[in-house]
């Protein structure tokens, strides 16, 4: 059993420094809480000089929102490029047509939620009202960032889903070149580009984690013959670009240090929070639709009552 747990930890990519067998409170006893001054102080050195566990804990539970721009810049030092390179990458890309198609559908705008979970047997006309439009300047920036990346990474070029990551970064940062550096860090340094080469091993890891960490849901999925792929294949792109931008940005905060394991963690926590509801399903289709369309919002609705829901979702334990 012990061997099993150790194997699981290694596979998920979580830091081996964190003991999963210890309760959550234990971390706060070990890890000092960074003050704003402390964050500023440690950012004067390389992030690699900072203890991993300490940094990981503070990124989750004590993140300096007002310093996000600086923290992102600090964590992505390996992805920084020569200042002239970004401009040099602005040449015609073979992906340009696809990028242009996707620009207008890169930003997730708030819409009224419909509780039918994407399924419908009656048609009550519901005039759609867009609740905002993305300004052209932002779209132009997004286009240049994606063109630059498609020209930098000749193997991957541009693949749909990158626009979600880039647009989410853009919603936080004004500086176009810095956005490009953050995107480059996620895709190249943290090797998330493999997903855009259709390496979907992350889905297998999620499946394993569900089996060990939410076994009741795993058994239910087995019973209804619901594959993880059906439920979570879009999560690996869309978690970066949520209507709840604060959650998407908190995911990026941690991704920049810990890679994709944070996506797995969020999915596991969402499932834990909605376990009672999920276990009620008796139908394969409805379970898939619920997880794909409603899981995130339903979980977040629960946590909106003044609690620090973001920290909870990002934690290893819940």
């Amino acid at each position, binding site marked *: 059993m012990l061997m099993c747990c150790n194997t699981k930890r290694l596979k998920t990519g979580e830091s081996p420094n964190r003991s999963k067998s210890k309760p959550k409170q234990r971390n706060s006893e070990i890890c000092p809480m960074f003050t704003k001054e402390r964050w500023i102080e440690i950012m004067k050195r390389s992030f690699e000089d900072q203890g991993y566990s300490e940094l990981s804990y503070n990124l989750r539970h004590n993140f300096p929102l007002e310093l996000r721009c600086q923290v992102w810049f600090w964590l992505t030092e390996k992805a920084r490029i020569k200042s002239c390179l970004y401009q040099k990458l602005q040449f015609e890309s073979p992906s340009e047509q696809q990028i242009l198609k996707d620009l207008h559908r890169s930003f997730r705008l708030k819409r009224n939620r419909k509780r039918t*979970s994407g399924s419908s047997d009656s048609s009550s006309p519901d005039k759609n009202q*867009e609740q905002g439009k993305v300004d052209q300047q932002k779209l132009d920036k997004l286009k240049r960032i994606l063109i630059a990346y498609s020209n930098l990474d000749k193997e991957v070029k541009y693949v749909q889903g990158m626009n979600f990551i880039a647009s989410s970064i853009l919603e936080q940062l004004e500086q176009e070149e810095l956005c490009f550096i953050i995107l480059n860090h996620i895709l190249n340094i943290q090797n998330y580009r493999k997903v855009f080469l259709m390496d979907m091993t992350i889905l297998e890891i999620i499946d394993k984690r569900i089996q060990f960490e939410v076994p009741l849901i795993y058994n239910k999925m087995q019973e209804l013959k619901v594959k993880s792929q059906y439920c979570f294949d879009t999560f690996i792109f869309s978690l970066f670009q949520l209507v709840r931008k604060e959650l998407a940005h908190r995911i990026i905060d941690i991704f920049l240090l810990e890679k994709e394991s944070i996506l797995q963690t969020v999915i596991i926590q969402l499932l834990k929070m909605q376990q009672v509801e999920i276990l009620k399903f008796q139908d394969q*289709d409805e379970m898939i639709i619920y997880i794909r369309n409603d899981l995130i919002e339903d979980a977040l609705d629960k946590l909106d009552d003044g609690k620090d829901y973001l920290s909870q979702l990002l934690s290893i334990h819940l």
Partner: protein
Amino acid sequence: MSLGYYDWLVKVIVLGDSGVGKTNILTQFCDSKFSQNYTATIGVDFKIKILNIQDKKIKLQIWDTAGQERFRNITQTYYKGAFGIIFVYSLIDRNSFNNVEGWIKSILESTTDEVCSILVGNKLDSQDRRVQTAEGEKLAQKYNMPFLETSALENKNIQDIFDRLGQNLKIRLENEGQKVSNNTQRQSGQFKLNQEANQTEQPTSSCNSC
């Protein structure tokens, strides 16, 4: 949550190039909505809708696929068990029309099962037409499938896509139903007949094998 009683459960996939309006067609059909700002479909998306064809209810399990070439390997894993296919191109995007045959061939290569298909030219509302109606008709004739031009924006002919597809599905399913009653159970798991007329609970999905 339950959609209640139905006679047949059918898996349908929607194929076509990126940006031709696949998601908007489905959202208009399933939710009576249209948005210029739907986010691009990554991988696949999934919707359910009950279709009433005469005295029969067909539960459609509709898989909306990403159009970008890179996702082809992923979307092909969803082809298995599909009984209805909607091929979509954009009337204002010549390339998307030229690529339809590629999509049709990808289905022919991936499945030996007989499927009900329909060809749809979307964005009829646009003034900048690049594909003539006769061209769409000719292509549909070549592959022996019905053809429609639609506008998801104006909700024009959207219901017709599914009515036409549903009619053909019903005929096919009734024929298959006779075979089933003769041969007990279909082996391929391609679709499933809901044979208990008074059943109130839904049967297990037919997608078990996909």
